């Protein structure tokens, strides 16, 4: 019994070691020239000169800033700091400064990996739902969101696999409305 257990744990640990070594080796191969672990992310340049706090602080504290000021603005009606300048945690201001343009000189929407917020949050595996309601690009830019490009889809008799539909088409199929509730 003891022997069996011992063998088992020995086997496990050796397996782990091998796997670990393989992992380290693979990192070394990918980032041999970059002196770091894991893939690198590219933070998009912003148009403003400086952010409301130093970058190090912004990276850690921006969720608190946003949460604090959304309560102030929405519930208490505070729209500016005491000196009249804009609030630190205004999402509108974030978007206006950090909006990223693509090669065609159009602002990229939230479904694009290049979007400032997405570029980091995707890397960190954090899903944000701010932009389900908030505008994701500066006002006045009217290129439409990719998700709303479903106007030409034929909604009748759509069964995935039997018709030549892309995954996007299937995702954009509107659910049938049959109930009477609002």
């Amino acid at each position: 019994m003891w022997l069996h257990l011992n063998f088992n744990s020995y086997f496990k640990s050796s397996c782990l070691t091998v796997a670990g070594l393989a992992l380290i080796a693979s990192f070394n191969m990918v980032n041999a020239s970059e002196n770091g672990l894991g893939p690198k992310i590219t933070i998009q340049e912003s148009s403003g000169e400086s952010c409301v706090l130093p970058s190090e602080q912004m990276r850690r504290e921006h969720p608190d800033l946003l949460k604090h000021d959304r309560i102030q603005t929405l519930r208490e009606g505070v729209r500016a700091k005491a000196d009249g300048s804009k609030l630190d945690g205004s999402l509108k201001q974030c978007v206006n400064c950090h909006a990223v343009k693509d090669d065609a000189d159009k602002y990229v929407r939230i479904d694009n990996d290049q979007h400032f917020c997405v570029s980091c949050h995707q890397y960190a595996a954090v899903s944000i739902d701010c932009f389900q309601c908030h505008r994701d690009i500066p006002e006045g830019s009217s290129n439409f969101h990719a998700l709303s490009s479903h106007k030409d889809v034929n909604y009748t008799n759509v069964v995935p696999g039997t018709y030549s539909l892309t995954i996007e088409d299937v995702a954009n199929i509107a659910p049938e409305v049959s109930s009477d509730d609002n």
Partner: protein
Amino acid sequence: MTINSEKETHSEMESSRRNFIFGSVAAAGLTIAPGVMLYQTANARSLSEKTSSKVRWGMLVDTSKDVDWNKCVDACNKEHGLANENHSRDDQKTQYIRVVDVKNKGTGYSMSLPVMCQHCEQPPCVDVCPTGASMKRPDGIVLVDRHRCIGCRYCMMACPYKARSFVHEVLTDQTENTPRGKGCVESCNMCVNRVDNGQLPACVEASQGAIIFGDLNDPQSDISQLLAKHGGKQIRADLKLNPGVHYQGI
């Protein structure tokens, strides 16, 4: 020393400029640019102050004026980026203002009036909200905090004015000042973003003087004086919710 005195002169200049602007506003509604009207502010609040109950915002709708209320609805839709649902049925689509036609069958007299959130003093939607999302600001504006709304639609059932709508589908291309999205209840917020910045609500601006906006707590404001002189009616006043929206000619 020199720097200090320069600073003082600068701040004096700033304050006199502010006095000039707000002084003129107190005297009368002031047009500072085409389409931008400032309202009367006796209990003026700076942008960095919290709202207070010294002010109670209200509206007075004169239905006897020959106005196309649909223009107000259009202005509202434009301001808040409404009417962008693609899949919802007509009765599901968001309306902040409904134009209600009424007819007296006996006399044949008919009229129409705009009905939006009535901004009650005792709002039932706030009473029933399980999360505190439906809220009343101290200055009387009733609105939904979408950060807290779970979309239960209890407030829609509680509202006697049918003022609230529920967003049934994914929305895109919202306006900067009115974030709105699927799964939340929403309603007229008296253009809170404009009011906080000293502008009139969009429907008031589009109404050609048929809707007056102002502070019900200030006896010198236009709206208070008109109400004191001619009176006004609240819809379903028997419910004793004391709405902030008053009507004349109904």
